[in-house]
């Protein structure tokens, strides 16, 4: 353990702003990237389900007309 107290840890020997800025940006971007990747998966699944449902509906209508 390099720091005596938690406030010491936050201050980082006077360089706290730069270090926390760097870590904040890094984690912000990484979390953003991860969220974006998961969002892509979700968006695809939603889209896919909608397309399937639409195809299903069209099929039903066509069958109904033929009858």
């Amino acid at each position, binding site marked *: 353990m390099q720091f005596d107290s938690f406030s010491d840890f936050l201050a980082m020997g006077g360089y706290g702003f730069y270090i926390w800025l*760097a870590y904040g940006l*890094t984690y912000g971007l990484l979390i953003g990237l991860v969220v974006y990747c998961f969002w*892509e998966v979700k968006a695809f699944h939603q889209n896919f389900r909608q397309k399937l449902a639409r195809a299903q509906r069209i099929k039903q209508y066509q069958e109904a007309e033929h009858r």
Partner: protein
Amino acid sequence: MFKWLHPLAKPETLYHFCGRLFPWLMLSAIGILLFGNLWGLVFAPQDYQQFDTVRIIYIHVPSALLSMSTYTMMAIAAFIALVWQVKVAQWSVLAIAPIGAVFTAISLLTGMAWGKPMWGTWWEWDARLTSQLILLFLYLGVIALYGAFSDRQTGGKVASLLAVIGIVNIPIIHFSVEWWNTLHQGASITKFDTPSVHPSMLWPLLISLLGFYLLMLALVCLRLRTAILEHEQHRPWVRATLGGH
């Protein structure tokens, strides 16, 4: 090895392979990354010259290394896509590109946050910074070029071609920028030699690097899966696996 690799060129197999790999990669990435970074932030000693700012190294160096190895990976995939016309290789180029771009941006931003207290400026037209910025432009070029085509097939091929051209150019750009830099200002403040990193700092650095690598691979797996589904959505196997009606 090729016998083992060859089935993976089939989208369906690759989809399931990535699916099996992803949770392990993602969980271990998060664990190892946090472990390495916390070690670096809390337990690693400070540098006698740079004091506590040296703690930025645990995200800066891994992201900078990652930005280049991700580009190499993308270029290899692009080469395979162009020469052997492997579909999944072409899709993986586009799956990799945004991830690499984010890592490049991280390395630039953390470099700036490190540069301000150490060199006194946010931005220095240093050889590494400049070539890193150009690397970011190359990534953005690949992404934008793909986006500019309405035909995804053509867009993917052209973007792959650009990725391969980029990798031929990176060394040329790097050396010319380095030469330009030494000509213009001389290596003065930017050169801080650390001939051998002390083990107490090296270990957290290596662990953070491993964490970044695993995270990159996990995200590539995830995006590649999405890309495969996106391209193959009209195939029967997709409907079968997604539990379609």
